């Protein structure tokens, strides 16, 4: 099957708009993706036709709403190869999913002084700060994998870093700043050998290529809906059933309970245990529609398209004088997120000139400041691609960078 990017683009109304008098060139999908009409329609249909609260109504609207909400959960479970939909916990986003584990795994991990949690230098702040705080609360020690000059995870000290004191390893599957795709196989094997659990931050991987939680072998994964054609306000924690069953509620309240008396409460089984209060129902249904859309196109096809775009972009960027790419310089083991600097020009100014030409990129430290520090820069410019990105858009980026050089160099 050939991937027809023009047909895909026709599903995204926003791609028709202009910015500052130029056709929109949206190169910020690692930040948030655009949404196809199919997702917007599914959310509107829920609001217009069968809005009712979930899991607590006997009436028809509530029943239909509950069915759609649980259908979305089942679709997402199938999408990531989860053995059961009950292992899919809806959260607000990846950050909440990771914090859920950080705040409810005390009994599971039995953390105390002398114990260790391992992360990496290429984490998004959301997979770093919760573990810093957990270590502060428990007296455990935070350790981390370094990053090589090529922007790869440095696993050379794996056996020393992950040892009998390690209780949890939490690393990113695909870096949101370097674009590096990590193969977690060795880390998972070593962690399990020493009895540690593994969480993978899949915020940038699940949207872009096939992810199967059983193949990955991880214990938890976190990802967010708005980076995969869904709306904001909905994310996912996947966890192995027996681990979720051993964790207490995070944000307790309605839906999380089994029996409540004034003296005490027993709690529902997962995933309800972790979904306190009325959840983002429309958003969950929207994410289910996004998964349908991605599945119909095929994640392998989407990945192949992005690999072609990335190959093209790496070359186009390398051809612009003064551009230095951070992270892997070839498409092997990297995704369609490319950060770079333009010599002598601050990323803020790069982004401003590009925006004037309708080219939307992200600038700053990308919630991964240690990576900027590692590469000795205060900030980076990042272009990130998705299923709707075209080579024409990469050309527009390259032309824009020539304009940046005209103004500043």
């Amino acid at each position, binding site marked *: 099957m050939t991937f027809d990017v023009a047909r895909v683009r026709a599903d995204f109304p926003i791609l028709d708009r202009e910015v500052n008098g130029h056709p929109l060139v949206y190169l910020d999908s690692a930040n948030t993706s655009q949404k196809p009409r199919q997702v917007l329609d599914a959310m509107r249909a829920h609001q217009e036709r069968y809005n009712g609260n979930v899991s607590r109504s006997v009436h028809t609207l509530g029943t239909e709403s509950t069915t759609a909400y649980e259908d979305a959960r089942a679709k997402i479970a199938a999408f990531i190869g989860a053995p059961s939909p009950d292992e899919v916990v809806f959260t607000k986003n990846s950050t909440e999913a990771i914090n859920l584990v950080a705040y409810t795994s005390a009994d599971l991990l039995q953390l105390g002084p002398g114990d260790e949690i391992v992360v990496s230098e290429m984490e998004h702040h959301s997979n770093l700060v919760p573990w810093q705080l957990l270590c502060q609360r428990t007296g455990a020690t935070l350790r981390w994998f370094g990053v090589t000059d090529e922007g790869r995870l440095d696993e050379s000290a794996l056996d020393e870093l992950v040892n009998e004191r390690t209780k949890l390893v939490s690393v990113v599957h695909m870096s949101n700043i370097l674009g590096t795709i990590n193969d977690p196989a060795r880390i998972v094997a070593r962690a399990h050998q020493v009895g540690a659990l593994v969480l993978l931050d899949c915020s940038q991987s699940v949207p872009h290529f096939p992810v199967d939680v059983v193949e990955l072998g991880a214990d938890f994964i976190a990802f967010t809906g708005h980076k995969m054609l869904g709306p904001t306000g909905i994310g996912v924690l996947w966890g192995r059933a027996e681990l979720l069953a051993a964790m207490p509620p995070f944000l307790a309240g309605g839906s999380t309970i089994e029996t409540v008396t004034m003296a005490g409460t027993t709690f529902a089984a997962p995933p309800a245990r972790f979904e306190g209060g009325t959840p983002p129902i429309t958003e969950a249904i929207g994410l289910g529609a996004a998964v349908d859309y991605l599945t119909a196109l095929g994640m392998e096809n989407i990945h192949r398209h992005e690999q072609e775009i990335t190959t093209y972009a790496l070359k186009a960027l390398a051809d612009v004088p003064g551009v230095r790419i951070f992270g892997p310089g070839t498409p092997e083991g990297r995704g369609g997120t490319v950060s770079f600097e333009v010599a002598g020009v*601050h*990323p*803020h*100014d790069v982004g401003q*000139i590009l925006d*004037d030409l309708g080219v939307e990129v992200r600038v700053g430290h990308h919630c991964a400041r240690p990576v900027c520090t590692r590469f000795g820069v*205060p900030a980076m410019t990042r272009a990130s691609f998705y299923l709707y990105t075209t080579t024409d858009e990469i050309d527009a980026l390259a032309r824009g960078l020539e304009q940046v050089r005209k103004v500043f160099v």
Partner: protein
Amino acid sequence: MIDQLYQDIILDHYKHPHGKGLRAPYGGEAHHVNPTCGDEVTIRVAVDGGTLTDISYDGMGCSISQASASVLHELLQGRTVEEAAPVQEAFVALMQSRGQIEPDEEVLGDGVAFAGVARYPARVKCALLPWMAFKDAAARAGVGASPEVKSS
């Protein structure tokens, strides 16, 4: 429109900053960062008998924040605390004007070039970064350079 943002005066100050580099002695120092974009600036203020005898600074960041520090140095260095206050107020007011204020060159000098920045909400905080750091540094040097700081 982008030309109004990147006026030649701003680009000149960015490429050839005035008075850059941290100097001693100084009475107060402040380090401010813009956490969303990574801009950083450190400002030192030396005061002698009510006069801002030296305003030294260092930092890294975009053209707007770095040029703003250079302009601040040029405008306030050697002025009395009383003279500096209205300049600072005028610059902050200009930045918060959303482009609705016609700046007074008598007061703001090269600072008038920042009028275009006020139309870019995302960049206003870049322009204000050195001015906010200056305010703190001046307070630490024992002089409120604006009434707001004096009263707090």
